[in-house]
């Protein structure tokens, strides 16, 4: 018995411009999360290349890639994945602490990020004391902590009810307007509609790639 090679993503070529807001959509198992993981350097392609701002992510060694993710990328996950032992403020501080930002500076920035996502009053709360929507806001603030070049979000509204999901869509839109480049993977049609560019995938391939302007 040998391991069968499955191509989760095949023949995909995609460019993401600075300031872009892109949604990757498609049925389950079409390879959209894998594409996001490749972009984020948490998965490696067997063939092909991934470059971010001219840096070959696919060729970086593990330590170099970790540092790159810390300094240039922000991640938002469907299940939030906040550190349960840390308060909202400390969760946001975590990537900054890792990047060597001084305590006073990182505390100031964490507070302003919490205010940005509308949770200034909840800084001392642990994740278990926050609602799903609030946890996802903290996760977004954590992703923005080191001023990333690219924010990658995998089903950011997947665990949220419709109303909270709508708030999240609004927040991501505001982030993009403020200059953050965003790539989201989603099944949420509202979220996909909010993006300025939508990439459709099927069976590991891009079958459609159009901007809002193209669609109209």
């Amino acid at each position, binding site marked *: 018995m040998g391991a069968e090679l499955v191509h989760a993503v095949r023949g995909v070529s995609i460019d993401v411009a600075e300031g872009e807001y892109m949604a990757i959509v498609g049925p389950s198992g079409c390879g959209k999360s894998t594409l996001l*993981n490749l972009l984020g350097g948490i998965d490696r392609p067997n063939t092909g290349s991934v470059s971010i701002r001219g840096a070959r992510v696919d060729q970086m060694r593990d330590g170099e890639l970790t540092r790159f993710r810390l300094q240039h990328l922000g*991640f938002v996950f469907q299940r939030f994945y906040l550190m349960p032992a840390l308060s909202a403020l*400390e969760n946001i501080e975590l990537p900054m602490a890792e990047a060597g930002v001084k305590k006073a500076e990182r505390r100031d920035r964490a507070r302003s990020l919490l205010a940005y996502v509308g949770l200034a009053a909840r800084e001392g709360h642990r994740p278990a004391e926050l609602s799903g929507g609030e946890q996802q806001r903290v996760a977004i603030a954590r992703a923005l902590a080191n001023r990333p070049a690219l924010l990658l979000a995998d089903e950011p509204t997947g665990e949220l009810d419709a109303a909270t999901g709508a708030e999240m869509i609004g927040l991501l839109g505001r982030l993009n307007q403020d200059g953050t480049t965003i790539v989201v993977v989603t099944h949420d049609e509202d979220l996909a509609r909010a993006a300025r560019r939508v990439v459709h995938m099927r069976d590991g391939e891009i079958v459609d790639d159009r901007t809002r302007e193209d669609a109209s």
Partner: protein
Amino acid sequence: MLLTLAWAALTRHRARTLLAILGVAVSAAMLLDMVMLSSGMRESFRNLLLSRGYQIRLAPKGTLPFDTDATIAGAAELRRALAADPDIVAVSPVLGGQLRIVARGRPITAVAIGNDAAVQGDYEVVRGRAAIARNEIVVSDEVLHDTGASLGDTVEAAGGYDAQLRDVTGRRALVIVGVAHFLYMAAGQRAVALPLATLQEAAGDRSRDRVSVFMVKARQGADVEAARRRIDSRFPSVTAISIATAMQQVDERLSYFRQLAFILGAVSLAVGFLLVTTLVTVSVNERLGEIVVMRAIGVARVRVVLQIVLEGVVIMLLGAVLGLALGLVTARYLNSILASFPGLPAAIDFFLFEPGDAWFALAMLTTAGILASVYPSWRGASRPIAATLREEAP
């Protein structure tokens, strides 16, 4: 922040962490006891031999001090010759024997030490004073207790036995002038000390001008080993034993104790190691999602490992501190049981606490804690991020 995360991981399952700490504490206590046992007897024997500053013992040729009933003849002449050595500052002759003592009508038998009060190194006076005059005697508490005598009482003592007459010989009246703690006696042993000449006389012709042992104190700064060799070659009737050579003999006799302690100590360390490995492995497996997300957001693998290793080290350290206290209590208890070991001086401790032992046990446990945590933490922190997140997804 790493400390906060490590501490939080430990307090997340308090009962489990507490049980692990208790497990490590038991293992640490046993390790400490074994370390104490491996060196305790040796060190306490050494301390005992050195307690009165005598570095060399002279026993009849080919024997160890008080190992046989053999005695050294020509004791007075030998003492003078030894005292003439410029490297020797004190010579204490000691004759061992038995005395039958009768006080207030109650006869008992006691170990008797004949020595010179001015240079004696066999007992410490607890009450009264040393026996100086020929009709004086110093006794242990056990003798007082068993005879019902008191300090100042006169007792009848006899050192020999005439088989034909079926009666004791060498009877004499002695005044109890002191109560003493006898350094080399076993617990509960009846012991008395009296001037050397008195005991020689009481024991009869067979002990005339004889001693069992000479204890020799070398001048400060003198080469003790050289002095021992000189005595050994100059006086063919004696074997000179320095502390170093005595310790060599003790080491040979106690080697099985050390092997036993080493094996049991290694087993306790292995138990502690496995406990921590198990706990850390379970803990890592429970929060793989958190761990790979930390890696995804850019926390270096080594820092993730460090955080998890810290958890193992905290368990080991808390367990070790608790185990230190537990080990001291159990060592004390075991020591009290073993103190009644027949023939061993009461001053000998099987478990002798020395700060170095505690530091050694602590260092071993900390190292074991680090090693026990490194593998599961490295394994957890090296999981492929994307694949693990997929597995963790509901």
